[in-house]
């Protein structure tokens, strides 16, 4: 069986690493570091998201209010129609009563 010395001298030599070292050091100059613990989105993106939200929220609120008003408007119109009809009937009954009174007065 091989001993360590035999094995050590029986493999191809490892190439020199000077160029590799220079390459790694130079490459690191071009690579930005990532700050520890930054798991949330970067601040700029968050601000943009907040900006969008600040526009979206009032617009959504306005739409909801508009829908509510429109919905309640229909109900008002129906009520108005009902009340108009009722008042018209009342008016008509009053006119009839008055006419009756006038007839009785004439007699």
């Amino acid at each position, binding site marked *: 069986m091989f001993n360590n010395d035999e*094995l*050590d001298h029986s*493999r191809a030599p*490892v190439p020199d*690493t000077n160029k*590799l070292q220079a390459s*790694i*050091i130079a490459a690191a100059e071009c690579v*930005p570091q990532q700050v520890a613990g930054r798991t949330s989105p970067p601040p700029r993106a968050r601000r943009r998201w907040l900006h969008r939200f600040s526009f979206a929220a009032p617009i959504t609120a306005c739409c909801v209010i508009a829908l509510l008003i429109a919905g309640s408007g229909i109900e008002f119109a129906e009520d108005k129609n009902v009340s108009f009809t009722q008042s018209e009937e009342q008016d008509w009954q009053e006119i009839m009563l008055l006419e009756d009174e006038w007839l009785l007065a004439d007699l």
Partner: protein
Amino acid sequence: MSAYQEKSDLQLAEFIASGNHAAFAELVTRHTDKFFALAFRTLQHQGDAEDVVQNAFLKFWQRPQLWQADKAKFTTWFYRVIINACHDSRRRGSRETSAEPEVFERVLPICLSEETLADEKQTRVWRQSCVESGIRALPISQRDALNLVVYNEVPQRQAAEILGVSVKALESLLVRAKRNLTDHINALKNQAERAHTADEVSNV
């Protein structure tokens, strides 16, 4: 002489965390040789080994907080990073430039002829080819153990920590690796001698 040469790995890592490029350069200069040697032995390819080491160092530069100094020494942790990166590289189907076994077996009888064996350099090349081929045939765990302890001269305790096994298990891996390597080389030698004898008979 660099101002950082006296600093420990931990101190350098603290400087690196604050974006100190000179400290990073010192760390690279200090350790590249041994990490590259391991990657080169594992992948048996210079280009792939260089890629693995460069990427590992650049990742450390980008995120030095990945190394937790309270859990392992820098070299222990980084050896593990390099080994994992080598396995990933191998899985991705990187090139293997060393002679394939078939090619090796075809070349072996030529290398074993008396004229070539007389040449010391040729003998060394033949022996290197035998060992490289034998190591490539080993199971990954045995190969990693052999590369770390025998070729990178990492102490057994540290090597066991790097590979995540007990010292006894590491010793067992080494014994089996050496036995398998010896068997592999003896088989190749016998095969080559038989081929050489057959050639001589046919010439007569």
